[in-house]
């Protein structure tokens, strides 16, 4: 019999080019933001999610260094790394620590510094998420894989680039209402015209921005006065690259992890009101929604409503998503959980729709659905 797991507090800092802040400083700041709402933090374990502190900060064993700096000693310390999906993988690992009864309280910190290096070096590090004996070796960057998938998607389902571009426009509009988003500005319908091509047809405005960030959540076996409960959590993996799979335009790892999380929560998909998804590149947003079953294959661009940022009665990425909130790699999944927490119990209501009594889900993945993690949360009752 596993135990129930709650999120008692969460905090995050603005995603930005924090040239003046180290990994330690970012982590500390995220905890200070959390403590504004919750003072009694006494973790028995610290789990740090970070994708590439070795390459970006020349730091191995980041979790130990951060825990020590924060004055958190004589406890269990781990770092979780699953590429871009590290954040939700860290939530899953922390969930397991508590559900199993090994510990009662875990502090999870997602932290990443990306803007330490010039863009080409950031791309070199980011490209390490691909198989280094294949994609990395031949310079097949994640953006080029996303572009290939975009072209295959457009050709199979008959969409123009302009038709898909409503996603970034919507994400930028959402980010304006999100205090911790990196790109808090609107873009016009034809903004792509002036946006540099990163890998044709995808432009800079189709990709997440490079930024530094940190977010923290405090998890425990007790709900306390107010908390969100992790009702379900699922994960699955697939062939690491998209084109060795039978169908590169449907991410099975997402379907499987969502099914697992829904079964664990004991609900069906229709009950989900709010969703944060891993839209690292425009085409992925649609494929994710289709792989989760919120639209038939090839239908998500038609079904997604930019006016309400919703699909099939589910609000999606009110944070602005990876596209405009930002994507500080290993911290991103923790930002998503922070946003769910804010919607459910933190009083954040960016569009004037009260979702505090609903079900919310966060979806994270590495690469093009190579590994996926999904968590379903609800206000504890």
């Amino acid at each position, binding site marked *: 019999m596993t135990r129930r797991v709650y999120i008692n507090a969460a905090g995050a800092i603005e995603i930005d080019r924090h040239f003046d802040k180290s990994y330690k400083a970012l982590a500390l700041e995220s905890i200070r933001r959390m403590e504004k709402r919750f003072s009694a933090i006494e973790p028995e374990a610290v789990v740090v999610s970070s994708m590439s502190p070795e390459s970006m900060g020349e730091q191995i064993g980041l979790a130990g260094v951060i825990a020590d700096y924060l004055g958190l000693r004589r406890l269990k310390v781990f770092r979780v790394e699953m590429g871009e999906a590290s954040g939700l993988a860290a939530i899953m690992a922390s969930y397991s620590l508590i559900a199993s009864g090994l510990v009662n309280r875990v502090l999870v910190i997602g932290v990443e510094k990306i803007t330490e*290096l*010039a*863009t*080409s*070096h950031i*791309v*070199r590090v980011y*490209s390490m998420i691909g*198989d280094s*004996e*294949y*994609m990395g*070796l*031949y*310079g*097949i*960057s994640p*953006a*080029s*894989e996303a*572009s*290939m998938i975009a*072209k*295959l998607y457009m*050709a199979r389902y008959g969409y123009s680039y302009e038709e898909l571009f409503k996603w970034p426009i919507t994400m930028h509009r959402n980010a304006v209402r999100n205090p911790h988003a990196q790109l808090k500005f609107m873009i016009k319908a034809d903004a792509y015209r002036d946006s*540099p*091509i*990163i*890998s*044709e*047809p*995808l432009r800079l405005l189709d990709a997440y921005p490079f930024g530094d960030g940190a977010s923290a959540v405090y998890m425990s076996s007790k709900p306390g006065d107010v908390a969100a409960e992790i009702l379900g959590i699922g994960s699955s993996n697939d*062939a690491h*690259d998209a*084109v*060795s*799979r*039978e169908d590169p335009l449907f991410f099975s790892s997402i379907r499987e992890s969502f099914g697992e999380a829904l079964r664990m929560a004991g609900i069906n998909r229709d009950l989900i009101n709010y969703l944060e998804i891993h839209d690292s590149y425009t085409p992925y947003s649609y494929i994710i929604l289709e792989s989760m079953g919120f639209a038939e294959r090839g239908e998500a661009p038609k079904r997604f409503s930019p006016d309400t940022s919703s699909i099939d009665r589910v609000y999606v990425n009110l944070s602005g998503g990876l596209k405009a909130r930002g994507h500080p790699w290993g911290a991103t999944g923790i930002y998503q959980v922070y946003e769910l927490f804010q919607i459910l119990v933190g009083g954040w209501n960016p569009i004037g729709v009260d979702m505090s009594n609903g079900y919310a889900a966060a979806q994270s993945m590495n690469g093009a659905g190579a590994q996926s993690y999904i968590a379903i949360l609800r206000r504890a009752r």
Partner: protein
Amino acid sequence: MAVRDSPPRIWRLRDILYRIKYAKCRSCGYMFYPPRISCVRCSSRDVEVMISKGLGTLVEYTILYQVSSRFQDSAPLIIGLIRLDEGFNMYGQVVDIDPKDLRKGMRVEAVLRRLRVDGSSGLITYGLKFRPAIGVHHGRSS
């Protein structure tokens, strides 16, 4: 940034850099690249590794401008999705062609090219890229 390629690593990768080894599932017939010890489609462990002739068709392509620092000297890169004649897909760099002449469905062949140069005193790594097929295929296993 000085990147130092590892001589043992590049030596060890010779089968990947100089040949295209793919896997074929004896159980369901599915073919995939790179090889794994179980089938990507049916998970059977009864797979055999084979060597491609390196001839194929360009299914899709993209021109990559935002390249890794490792490939800055050759930017922009043409990245192709290639369907090899044996029946599997792989990504690869496409060379010897002006981007405006690229066509989906064009025939391509693997060719050995310089992949990267590690500074002025480091290793020069060669590997396979794809060029428009010129109609004459050299060598036994690309």
